[in-house]
């Protein structure tokens, strides 16, 4: 998959709703992110930011609503979801007993990427850690090592769940720079975070404002449950 082919990419969510167990998280979440755009999702703990990102990634089904990836020029054909997304969740998807290098080589090959490992590692300032087992890394170093995966295989859509948690200021800056570059190259990103994150470039989605009222009190209504 080639960078330029996503020039007019667009991510649209319409009327997304989700309840988990007893909690009615949000209702009617609608937004559009265009190529080059960054949506920062904000909200209190447990308001459903992670849930929303997982829904966009296809890791969780919405109760209602749809998520669509369109190519603006030919919006008829929805993009193949499979090779469109990088999901960078709370966990770093690194095996702690393998070296950073082994982990990253695996992800690059598995995701069919062609990125230069050493260059990517240098950008995230983990080049000197490549041969350590992940278990030896500090929390922030692990986070950076996990993020390196995103540079190794190109995906137009980045979904970032608290990407800068555990990072120091310098590293936060570096990561912001990388996301910014990704946007400039025609990608788009959705990030959930409690911290400042590219606030000048981002559109903010305040998830708490979509929170539904108290759930239905009559269980036999609607779907019969």
């Amino acid at each position: 998959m080639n960078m330029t082919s996503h020039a007019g990419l667009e991510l649209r969510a319409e009327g997304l709703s989700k309840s988990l167990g007893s909690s009615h998280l949000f209702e009617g979440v609608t937004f559009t992110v265009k190529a080059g755009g960054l949506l920062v999702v904000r909200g209190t703990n447990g308001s459903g930011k992670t849930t929303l990102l997982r829904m966009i990634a296809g890791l969780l089904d919405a109760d209602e609503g749809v998520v669509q990836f369109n190519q603006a020029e030919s919006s008829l054909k929805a993009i193949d979801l499979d090779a469109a997304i990088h999901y960078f969740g709370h966990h770093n998807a690194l095996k702690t007993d393998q070296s950073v290098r082994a982990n990253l080589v695996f992800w690059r090959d598995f995701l069919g990427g062609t990125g230069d490992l050493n260059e990517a590692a240098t950008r995230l300032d983990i080049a000197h850690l490549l041969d350590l087992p992940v278990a030896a890394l500090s929390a922030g170093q692990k986070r950076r090592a996990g993020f390196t995966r995103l540079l190794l295989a190109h995906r137009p859509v980045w979904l970032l769940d608290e990407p800068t948690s555990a990072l120091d200021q310098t590293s936060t800056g570096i990561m912001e720079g990388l996301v910014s570059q990704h946007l400039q190259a025609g990608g788009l990103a959705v990030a959930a975070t409690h911290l400042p994150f590219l606030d000048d470039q981002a559109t903010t989605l305040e998830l708490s404002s979509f929170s539904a009222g108290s759930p239905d009190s009559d269980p036999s209504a609607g779907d019969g449950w």
Partner: protein
Amino acid sequence: MKLWILVRRELALAFGRSANVALPLVFFLSLVILFPFGIGPDPQTLSLVGPAVLWAGPLLGTLLALDSTFQPDVEDGTLEVLMTGSTPLEVVVLGKALAVWVGTALPLVIVAPIFGMMLSMETTALTGTFLSLLAGTPALALFGTIGAAVTAPLRRSGMLLSVIILPLLVPTLIFGVGAAAGYGDAALPFRAPFLLLCALSLFAAVLAPIAGAAAIRALR
């Protein structure tokens, strides 16, 4: 190709992790010790139960490795990336199963003849058992992977996993021991059970990726 990348990684992890390779071997060896000491040294009886013990080792030993097939991936976020990647989940599941077979079952099959000699088995019986193991253990690993996928989100699921998988493995065991007994014994058939065994492994190779991938998708 993606398959090979996956298998290689799984093997690297398995050989690095304590439980996956060593424990099944420990268990197999323990079985081979238990039977002679339990039955007594009579070579006649020993060689009678030999094929069954040699089958029980890989069969039960594989269970020890299956426990950590999907569960760590759920916990460290690997599964999320595998699921959002462009590789079909069927390939992922097949890769896991292959890795279980190569990393756990195959070593057990390879040591089986040695253990068989400890059980006073003769060369023909050894050969038959070895061949049947070679043909049948893929089915064990594949059916087992289905069970592992189904219990992926559960912790400490070893026993549950065993209970779910073992009934599915009964046909494999029947044909496996049948083929082992039939080899070099004119009165008993070898070809038929052996071919059935191969058929089972092939069938499992088709079924396991589909069923396992469906189970993983059900996590959504």
